[in-house]
């Protein structure tokens, strides 16, 4: 057989019908993997293998996420924090994914997933510092966390390259690329996804589809029905999961992780809803109505998990108030540590750009330090300039 004939098997059978040669979207939106329903009912056989302690721990992470969101927004309103992106409504999606990963795995975040970062090992103090605009917060190598991808899509090819390194090293680690449903619209996402597929990168594309990208609804973001299907054209598998069901998220990511670690990059689309504003700068009333938000409040993941814990018989073991108090204390301590953090002087701005500071940069630093000595009134402009 000639080479061409060999290949023809791969090309698919020839057909004289255009219809048979036409590929299109599935007519129905694919299902969402779910274990626990809105009322907390579940099939015991479908439960992932988690101990009671682990279930309680998952609950604690979700409560911590709630506490962080409420308190960060308050601090922002008081001028003690920069712009903040709340994760309310996505507690299950964030914590469930991070919890399913292994210690050796790396996380490439995009900014909204507070508890995912903390589960990975990043201190809460550093999360506060990040949102206060302190670069030191990005020193998370030890915790295997890359700085958040504030410029959307930028972390995707980078994370793919990082995971490529893992596979070249025969490491059994993977990278998880957290992102939103807006990210796949960027060129970098699509290029990164295709590249991952060609090099068999151990990269897990974890999409939190929270319905909106700032004001753009998912329908305005793409003509596709799902994010999960985006991988198909590039040769990636996709899983859709109910992002408000923490056990389903955990199970789906665990399964996907297995697949990914064998060199099969995979998209997990966690379908959820952002209950708060996009960030503290956003006014969601301009683009969505209260009725829609109320509907999703009903499906809110923390209360769903509480219902499950009741059905499962573990709720009596949990002192909700104590869990919340503990989370608040944890936040108090982190805030105290962030307040006390010495973020250094002006040299911080000049350090780290190069391995060795070039002479010109040293000159700029010295001249600036001298200027600040000579003109202490400059601090009036620096500290008290009206902020946008």
């Amino acid at each position, binding site marked *: 057989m000639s080479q061409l004939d060999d290949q023809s098997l791969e090309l698919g059978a020839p057909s004289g019908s255009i219809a048979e040669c036409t590929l299109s979207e599935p007519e129905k939106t694919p299902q969402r993997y779910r274990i626990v329903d809105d009322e907390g009912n579940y099939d015991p056989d479908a439960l992932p293998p988690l101990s009671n302690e682990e279930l309680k721990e998952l609950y604690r992470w979700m409560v911590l996420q709630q506490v962080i969101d409420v308190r960060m927004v308050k601090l922002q309103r008081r001028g003690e924090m920069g712009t903040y992106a709340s994760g309310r409504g996505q507690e299950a999606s964030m914590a469930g994914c991070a919890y399913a990963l292994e210690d050796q795995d790396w996380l490439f975040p995009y900014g909204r997933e507070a508890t995912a970062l903390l589960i990975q090992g990043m201190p809460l103090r550093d999360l506060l510092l990040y949102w206060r605009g302190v*670069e030191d917060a990005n020193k998370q190598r030890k915790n295997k966390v890359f700085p958040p991808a504030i*410029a959307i899509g930028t972390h995707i090819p980078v994370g793919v390259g990082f995971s490529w390194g893992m596979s070249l090293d025969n490491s059994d680690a993977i990278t998880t690329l957290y992102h939103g449903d*807006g990210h796949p619209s960027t060129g970098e996402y699509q290029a990164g996804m295709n590249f991952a597929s060609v090099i068999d990168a151990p990269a897990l594309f974890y999409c939190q589809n929270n319905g909106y990208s700032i*004001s753009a609804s998912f329908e305005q973001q*793409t003509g596709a029905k799902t994010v999960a299907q985006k991988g198909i054209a590039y040769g990636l598998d996709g899983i859709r999961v109910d992002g408000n069901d923490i056990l389903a998220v955990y199970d789906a990511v665990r399964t996907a992780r297995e697949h990914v670690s064998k060199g099969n990059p995979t998209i997990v689309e966690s379908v959820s809803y952002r209950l708060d504003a996009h960030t503290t700068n956003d006014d969601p009333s301009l683009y969505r109505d209260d009725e829609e938000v109320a509907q999703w409040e009903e499906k809110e993941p923390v209360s769903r998990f509480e219902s499950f814990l009741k059905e499962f018989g573990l709720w009596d073991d949990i002192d909700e108030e104590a869990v919340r108090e503990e989370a608040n204390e944890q936040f108090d301590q982190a805030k105290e540590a962030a307040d006390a953090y010495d973020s250094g002087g002006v040299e911080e701005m*000049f350090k780290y750009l190069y391995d060795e500071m070039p002479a010109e940069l040293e000159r700029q630093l010295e001249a600036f330090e001298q200027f600040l000595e000579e*003109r202490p009134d*400059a601090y009036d402009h*620096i500290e008290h*300039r009206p902020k946008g």
Partner: protein
Amino acid sequence: MNATLVEAVNDALQTAMAGNDRVVVYGEDVAETGGVFRATQGLKDEFGDDRVLDTPITEIAIAGSAVGLAMYGYRPVAEIQFSGFIPPTFNQLVSMASRIRWRTRGEMTAPMVIRAPYGGGVRALEHHSESLEAAYAHVPGLQVVIPSTPHDTKGMLLSAIEEPDPVLFLEPKRLYRSFREEIPDEEYTVPLGEAAVRKEGEDITVISWGSTMPDTLAAAETIEEERGVSTEVIDLRSISPLDKETIIESVKKTGKAVVVHEGPKSGGFAAELIATINEDALMHLEAPVHRVTGFDVPIPMLGMEDYYLPNPPRIEEGIKRALDLEGGV
């Protein structure tokens, strides 16, 4: 009307759309909410979904489709949400927008405007505050415009939309709401490529644009009082094309100059201006031309961004150095 700079943007867009039904406004979040700075507020209600569009997050396609739309015969005015997200458009600006006319020997053109808020000082997140106008000005065929007052903003945006070639229109977001100014209600234009002399003087020329303009004017006035000298202050307004004449004439008169900008120092646009002055007015110079700029580092996150930005004391010291004839920087 009495308008802020961002209201002037809005007014210009409204005026342009009302006067020409081929003007199409689009970008991320521009339609439903009026954009994150509300620059496009109300336009969708007035002009409808077809002419005011929310796009997916794809700066590549926002810029690239503007080239195509413009070539076809529309007048796209696309918004890039923050200057830090212009880089993905760079390929389309360099490889397509700026050279369509040249490549097709004048047969096709891309009369498009890309608007973006630029600069630091509003406590935005990282990657939101870049001032890389010098990089964009380095692209032949791409016009780069930066107004600093509400009046210029409306007039220059209207000029940009009428302009037969592509314009990158950078808006100093730090000044979006920092002051108001009386601007005409009706349509008017302020030509591109012409600097404005904000203040006439005899002893030193101070050149700036965009976000650093008010601080530069304030510093110049402080120096006048302190030193009893008179300063001439030029607002460049267009980075490309550059109004060399106004600069050279001024320097010939004053013999001294300082350039103030927010972008990093090395390779910044001040360097181009100083080279221009050297080429055409060296013999009139009585002192080296100084520059007061950002530093050669990425603009820091909000914890330290105010240290990075040139402020009036820094500008004052720069002017004094030039006045005092101390060489070097």
